[in-house]
């Protein structure tokens, strides 16, 4: 492989990592904090992509598209969390999984109803190429990665520097004891959920110009999002980031070497890691789901 291929692959991998992180972090938070497997994150991701499509097509502004994507995804998140998920947090995991999966399916149905089945293209927000060691690469792909890093830093600051964040970290360890102090953990759940769904919407909008936006785009992503959180360790934001970084490169490099590898390699990496460390790279210890002690 020559330098050109290497660098192109690296940059493609970084953009993939960015998208993986943005769509997976909500699943990781949902598991760590609310102890649910929220498959319906992919609805926010898909809605985000479609909002980008609709707004960019009608106004020509990608920035507006992003804002609309985040706003709509967050709004959907509020509705789903307060009207539905809040009622099922205390149920067993299988039950909440069926519920969130149903929301995912209903979401796909609504998307088909609004936008139809045909895939939609989203105009690229920028054609700028920049040079990395003589090799020209699309700036937009690097920007996606930069946004993901900023989101990561934002979440870390929230968790480590604010009292709300400390309550969230405490809640990840033991939600009952947080309540015992007199803190309304449900309010914290809602806030975190809205942040997570907004981020998933952002991921969808950012990825939209690089793919064809379709009602089933969440399916493909669901699989990779799950691999990302399992490899990183459920509940660990840092783990999700590290795992997204690894998987992005694995997918890009795999695809460069032999196209089908882009889809197979992530599974192989996940299985290898899980064999050695079942809780994933940065599995969080908590009181739920066999993570005890």
């Amino acid at each position, binding site marked *: 492989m020559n330098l050109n291929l290497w660098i192109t692959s690296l940059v493609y991998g970084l953009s993939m990592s960015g998208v993986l992180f943005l769509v997976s972090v909500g699943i990781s938070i949902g598991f760590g904090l609310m102890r649910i497997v929220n498959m319906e994150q992919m609805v926010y991701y898909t809605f985000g992509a479609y909002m980008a499509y609709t707004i960019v097509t009608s106004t020509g502004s990608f920035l507006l598209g992003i804002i609309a994507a985040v706003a709509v995804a967050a709004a959907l998140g509020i509705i789903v969390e307060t009207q539905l998920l809040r009622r099922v947090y205390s149920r067993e995991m299988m039950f909440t999984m069926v519920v969130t999966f149903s929301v995912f399916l209903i979401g796909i149905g609504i998307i088909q109803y609004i936008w139809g089945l045909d895939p939609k293209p989203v105009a690229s927000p920028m054609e700028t190429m920049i040079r990395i060691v003589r090799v020209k690469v699309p700036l937009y792909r690097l920007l996606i990665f930069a946004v993901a890093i900023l989101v990561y830093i934002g979440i870390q600051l929230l968790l480590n520097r604010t009292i709300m964040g400390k*309550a969230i970290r405490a809640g990840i360890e033991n939600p009952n004891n947080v309540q015992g102090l007199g803190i*309304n953990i449900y309010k914290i759940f809602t806030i975190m959920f809205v942040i997570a769904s907004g981020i998933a919407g952002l991921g969808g909008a950012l990825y939209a110009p690089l793919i064809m936006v379709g009602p089933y785009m969440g399916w493909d992503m669901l699989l990779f999002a799950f691999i990302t959180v399992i490899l990183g360790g459920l509940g660990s934001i840092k783990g999700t980031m590290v795992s997204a970084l690894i998987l992005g490169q694995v997918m890009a490099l795999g695809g460069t070497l032999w196209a089908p590898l882009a889809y197979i390699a992530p599974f192989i990496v996940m299985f290898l890691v899980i064999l050695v460390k079942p809780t994933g790279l940065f599995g969080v210890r908590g009181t739920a789901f066999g993570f005890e002690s």
Partner: protein
Amino acid sequence: MNADRTNTLLNVSDLEVSYQKLKVLFGVSVYVKKGENVVLVGRNGAGKTTLFRTIAGFIKKGKGNIVYKGKEIDRLEAYEVAQRGLKYIPQDKQVFSDLTVRENLELGSYATKDHEWDTVLVHFPKLKTLLDRKAGNLSGGERQMLLITMALLGRPELVLMDEPTEGLAPQLVKELKDAFKEINRHTTLFIIEQNLPLTAEVADRVYSMKEGKIVAETTARDDIKEMVFEKYL
């Protein structure tokens, strides 16, 4: 039952609680008066923790009612019960291990808007030297001290402690005993204990629980001193 029931802070009557189909509390009635230090004794599995967790709002009751300061609290969420000044310190001594001692206390302050740590840290001055330590690295005794200190933020009127001295060295048990007496001067306590000599020393009144029922209430000073509650276990 006891004649003078004025100043009743907590009144639990005919409480029945089940885990799915397994019934574990069979019509439990207890009360705690303002200023008292009431101790609940009973063997493992008697249902003591279940009673406390139900009062604190973590478990939904089957039948009966729980009245705190004249109001029914049995439909409230656990955080609402805590906000009303009824705190529960669980049996497992679980602090937020990933946070420092300081951050643990900050959470207690955030929950209660009570930022006067000095007032609560007087009972365990040692904690002041451990503020920057990860709570996960504290010893069992230090964890218990931190949990009590956190619970006292917001000046709760009633604190339920679930086997606070379990597994602690004798010296620490003595320290806690002294703290209980000190805290009890301004806070009502309802404590689960398996340490009977300690119970005899600190209790104003003792409930004995067996197989999900209150089987005895020991009120006379001398009876408590002589640990007559032991024979009901």
